[in-house]
C-alpha cells in the first residue's frame, strides 16, 4: 500500500525522478507557483528544502502545500537544526493532514553557514532519531507512547553522502538509517562517479539496495567556475579535476554542462541499486524539463 506517487513508482520497480525547489525568501507566492507550473510533470516528486544552508526561507511545509495546490507531489524536508521532537511531530502531523506524504529527514547545515549565525540551534534529535520518531507516528504512536486516533501517512526518506568521510562508514550509516525507518534515500550530487560506484558496490554487497530505494543526486553545472565552487566551497562534495577541465575547455560550457548531466543520469541509471535520480539545479530550475527529456526519464 503506497501513500504517495513517489512510493508507488519506486515500489513498482520504476525509475523515479525527483527534483529540488528552493522556497522563496519571503511571501513570493506567485514566484513559487510559476516555478511549480514550469516544473510540473518533469519529476515524480519535488523536494522543498528546509531553510537550506541555514538561510531563512518560506517553510518547507508551506511551500509543499502551495506545490500540492499546483498539482505537484512534494517531498517535505525537515532538518534537526531548528525543531525539537515536539515541533517535528506536530509539523509532520499537520503536514500529513494537509496532504503531504513524503518527508526527508536530515541533520541540516549548521547555522554558522547561514544568515542567522547568532541563533541557538536545537539538535534535540539527529536524523536517525528523527526517522525513528516519525516511523513511530505512522505506526500509531507519538514518541511519548500515546496512541493516535488518525496517524499521519508518511513515506520516509533520508540523505546519504558517499563523498563525505569516513568513506567506509557511509555504508554503515546508510544501514543505520534503514534500521531507523528510511524507505528511500537521496544522495549528495554525484560528480565523482567512480567513488559513487565503489560506494554502491559496498551497498549491494550488504544487500541494502533491497531494503531501501536509492536515488542518486545530479547537478547540471553551467561553467567551470560553478564546478570549482562545488569543489572548493561546498562541504561534502567530491569533484574530479577532469570534470572541471572539460567545462573549461568547452566553447559552450552551458551546453557542455547539460550534456554532462544527461550523460551522468544515463550512467547512474545503469548502476545496480540505483532506483532514480534527484536533480538539483539551483538558480537554473528552468533547465530541468529539458534534462529529463533528453535523458529519456520524463515521468
Amino acid at each position: 500500500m503506497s501513500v504517495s506517487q513517489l512510493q508507488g513508482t519506486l515500489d513498482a520497480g520504476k525509475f523515479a525522478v525527483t527534483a529540488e525547489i528552493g522556497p522563496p525568501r519571503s511571501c513570493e507566492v506567485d514566484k513559487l507557483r510559476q516555478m511549480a507550473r514550469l516544473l510540473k510533470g518533469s519529476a515524480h516528486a519535488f523536494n522543498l528544502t528546509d531553510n537550506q544552508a541555514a538561510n531563512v526561507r518560506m517553510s518547507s511545509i508551506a511551500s509543499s502545500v502551495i506545490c500540492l495546490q499546483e498539482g505537484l507531489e512534494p517531498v517535505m524536508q525537515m532538518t534537526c537544526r531548528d525543531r525539537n521532537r515536539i515541533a517535528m511531530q506536530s509539523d509532520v502531523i499537520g503536514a500529513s493532514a494537509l496532504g503531504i506524504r513524503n518527508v526527508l529527514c536530515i541533520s541540516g547545515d549548521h547555522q554558522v553557514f547561514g544568515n542567522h549565525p547568532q541563533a541557538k540551534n536545537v539538535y534535540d534529535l539527529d536524523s536517525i532519531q528523527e526517522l525513528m520518531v516519525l516511523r513511530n507516528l505512522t505506526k500509531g504512536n507519538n514518541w511519548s507512547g500515546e496512541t493516535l486516533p488518525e496517524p499521519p501517512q508518511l513515506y520516509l526518506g533520508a540523505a546519504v553522502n558517499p563523498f563525505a568521510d569516513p568513506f567506509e562508514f557511509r555504508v554503515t550509516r546508510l544501514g543505520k538509517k534503514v534500521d531507523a525507518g528510511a524507505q528511500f534515500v537521496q544522495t549528495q550530487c554525484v560528480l565523482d562517479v567512480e567513488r559513487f560506484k565503489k560506494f554502491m558496490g559496498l551497498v549491494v554487497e550488504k544487500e541494502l539496495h533491497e531494503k531501501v530505494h536509492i536515488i542518486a543526486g545530479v547537478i547540471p553545472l553551467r561553467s567551470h567556475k560553478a564546478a570549482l565552487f562545488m569543489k572548493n566551497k561546498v562541504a561534502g562534495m567530491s569533484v574530479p579535476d577532469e570534470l572541471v577541465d572539460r567545462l573549461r575547455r568547452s566553447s559552450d560550457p552551458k551546453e557542455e554542462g547539460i550534456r554532462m548531466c544527461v550523460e551522468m543520469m544515463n550512467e547512474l541509471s545503469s548502476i545496480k541499486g540505483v532506483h532514480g535520480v534527484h536533480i538539483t539545479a539551483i538558480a537554473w530550475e528552468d533547465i530541468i524539463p529539458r534534462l529529463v527529456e533528453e535523458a529519456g526519464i520524463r515521468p
Partner: protein
Amino acid sequence: MIIAERKPLPEVLGMLDGSNEILVLGCRSCTAICLAGGEKESRALSEALALHSELKGKGWKVDTLTVERACEKEFLTPLNGFKGTVVSMACGVGAQVVQDHGPEAMVVPGVNTSNMGAPEGMGVFVEKCAGCGDCIIHLTAGICPIARCAKSLLNGPCGGSQNGLCEVSKETPCAWDQIIRSLERSGRLDLLNVNIPPKDWRASRNGGPRRVVNQEALPGAAQNGWRGEP
C-alpha cells in the same frame, strides 16, 4: 575544568562608572589554570584599573585579592563586609557565589566563562564536556559527541564531515571521525550498529537549573542537633 577568557578592558571599564572601592578578585583554581583570572591576571587588571583611575581622575580605590576557590564560600571570609565593587576574575560560578555571599557588594564579571574543557597544549583549551547529566562515552570510545560534535549527533557523522574535520571550522576535528577511528583501532565498530534512541535531556540544562544532592553528605537531625543548628 572551567575555561574562561579575560574580558576586553574597555568592556570592564564600562561596568565601573560610579564605583568607589574596587576589589579585583582572582581565583587559584580553574581560571588560574586557563590563564584568565589567577593571581597574575588579577594583579594585571588591578594595576590597569588603578592607572586608569589616576589618569582620568576617577578616584577609585583599587585593590586585589586572590582566593583558593571562589565558588566555595568558606574561602570568601576576607570579603566579609565589603560593600564596594568586586571585579570577579573567577568563573561565572565563583562570581555568583561571591555575590550571594556578599549581597551588599556589587559583583561584575571580569572574565567571560566559556565551557568545560581541558588544555590541549600551551595556551589552547578545548571544550570536552557539555554537562548533559547522562554520560554515554563508554559507547563512543571515550569521546563525547554532545560536546565535541557541533550538532551533538549521536549516531555517526553528518554529511559535512570531510578529512576528519567538522564543516563548522577547519580547526574543529569531527568528533565522529575520531570516534569511528578509535572504535576501529580497538575492534569495537559493532557498537555503531546499534542506533542510539532520542536522548532524555531532562538531566541536562534543558530540564532546568540543576540541583544535585548527595544523600550521604546531607546533615541529618543528629548532626544538626550536635552543631546546635535547628
